């Protein structure tokens, strides 16, 4: 008997891929899908998890190489910010805990939306996955296991899933002109920082949408293409610094620059595989969550991924992306001078978070808001991972760090709370509350004005 229980608990449910497939199966059964559909969905979820892990294995290989040549070439460590990469790493170790934390986040989100006036249902699956990852990682490394671990990350994450869309909503209403959708993307604190700066500098500045941007920037919209554009120099420059002799021991006779180029492409390929896995993994979970949530919270406002805002200000997306990249490059150079880690600009975040932040900046402070706010945003999202690095390092993660600002904030707040560093926790919460208040204080009035105008 004991053996059977042991088999179920350890071998079956201990396998994160199996556990998450079971969760998907439960969701499918609750939606009363046909047997064939249930089997298909369960199987695909299982497959998705394994593909995600395969992707992370590819990335880890090339990342280790980059770390080596970077350290050798520049005498210091560089950190790649890629939330998916670090989440994949954590999932290899803590997959089951992350999966269960995700379930608790779903549940807490529904409960809060049901009981409070904040009717946001967070539907961006991958963002919730990153949120449950950081919750599980920080809790686990602070010594929590089992139910306390899952509940801590889950309840905090569930609150974030409602609070973050809520504090962004006044600006989102202003961008979209309606209250139908909310923004569900855990980079909200960064957006508010940009919006706050835009508010200070942007008085009377014209909208970015009156600009005509060159067409050839459009290829940047293709995520993997733009990732490749940045990863190539990210590998070639350190390779140049490290020199051919050092790289010879990796490259097996291939030219050192060619080898580094291939490694950078390998990184992009790994990211492609990783994201394909995440896509399969979430395919059944998100509709199930959505179906259940919409039934329990009839007047729910879906919080969706950031590109929902892109059509409202496509120029601001490009401007925000470029400005954020400038800011993150400045941050990469300046922060190490203050003894912080060197954070290499993460293109995915720069594009999605930077683009959305640009839309926020433009909505509040026009072109100046999008440009100056964007540079500050770039600095901010480089600063946050830099102060998280010491914590991650003490947990054994090197070379890669989280990227999305709300996810990092969760890590910082929970991590410092576990270390009883309440001053940091308090200051951070006050800071976020302040910028949320500052951005939204007069925005509310603007919306009223807008309504009057259109009426």
């Amino acid at each position, binding site marked *: 008997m004991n053996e059977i229980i042991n088999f179920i608990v350890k071998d079956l449910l201990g396998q994160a891929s199996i556990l998450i497939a079971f969760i998907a199966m439960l969701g499918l059964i609750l939606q009363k899908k046909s047997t064939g559909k249930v089997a298909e969905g369960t199987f695909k979820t299982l497959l998705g998890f394994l593909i995600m892990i395969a992707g992370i294995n590819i990335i880890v290989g090339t990342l280790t190489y980059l770390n080596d040549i970077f350290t050798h070439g520049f005498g210091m460590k560089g950190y790649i910010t890629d939330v998916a990469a670090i989440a994949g790493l954590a999932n290899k170790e803590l997959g089951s805990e992350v999966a269960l934390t995700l379930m608790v986040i779903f549940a807490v989100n529904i409960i809060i939306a049901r009981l409070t006036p904040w009717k946001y249902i967070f539907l961006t699956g991958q963002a919730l996955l990153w949120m449950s990852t950081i919750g599980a990682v920080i809790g686990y490394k602070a010594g929590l296991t089992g139910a306390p671990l899952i509940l801590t990350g889950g309840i905090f994450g569930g609150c974030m899933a409602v609070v973050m869309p809520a504090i962004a909503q006044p600006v989102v209403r202003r961008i979209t002109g309606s209250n139908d959708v909310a923004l569900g993307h855990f980079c909200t604190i960064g957006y508010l920082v940009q919006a706050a700066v835009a508010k200070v500098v942007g008085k009377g500045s014209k909208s970015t949408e009156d600009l005509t941007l060159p067409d050839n920037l459009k290829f940047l919209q*293709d995520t993997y293409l733009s990732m490749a554009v940045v990863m190539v120099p990210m590998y070639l420059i350190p390779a140049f610094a490290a020199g051919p002799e050092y790289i010879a021991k990796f490259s097996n006779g291939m030219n050192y620059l060619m080898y580094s180029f291939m490694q950078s492409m390998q990184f992009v390929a790994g990211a492609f595989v990783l*994201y394909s896995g995440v896509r399969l993994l*979430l395919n059944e979970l998100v509709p199930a969550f959505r179906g259940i949530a919409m039934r329990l919270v009839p007047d729910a406002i879906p919080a*969706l991924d950031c*590109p929902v805002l892109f*059509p409202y200000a496509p120029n601001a997306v490009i401007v925000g992306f470029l400005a954020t990249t400038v800011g993150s490059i400045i941050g990469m150079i300046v922060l190490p001078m203050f003894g912080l880690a060197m954070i290499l600009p993460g293109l995915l975040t720069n594009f999605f978070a930077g683009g959305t932040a640009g839309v926020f900046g433009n909505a509040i402070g026009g072109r100046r808001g999008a440009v100056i706010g964007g540079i500050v945003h770039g600095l901010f999202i480089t600063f946050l991972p830099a102060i998280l690095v010491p914590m991650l390092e003490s947990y054994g993660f090197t070379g890669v760090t989280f990227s999305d600002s709300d996810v990092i904030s969760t890590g910082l707040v929970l991590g410092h709370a576990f270390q009883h560093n309440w001053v940091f926790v308090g200051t951070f919460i006050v800071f976020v509350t302040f910028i949320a208040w500052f951005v939204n204080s007069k925005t509310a009035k603007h919306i009223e004005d807008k309504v009057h105008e259109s009426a």
Partner: protein
Amino acid sequence: MLKVLCVCGCGLGSSFAIEMTAKSVFKKLGIQADVDHTTVSEANAFKSDIILTQKVFADILTSDATEEESKRVISLSKLTDKDEIETKVVAFLKDQNIKGI
């Protein structure tokens, strides 16, 4: 069966949002459709009858497509507006004389 592809940059978030909306629209219209979501990089690698996406990605997908191919790319201004998807899809199907409505 109609093959519908929803497309965005990363193939994770907003294409999925379109997919969920589109599925309920096709259900309402009573059209059998196989709806899936993917990245803009992969979109042209799959055979599809309709592509639903945002303007920026529609521009990429139609940039060197023939006129006939471009027609199937439907550009949406709101990702989760059922009425918009319904209107545009119905107009496309009528134009193409595809049965099912």
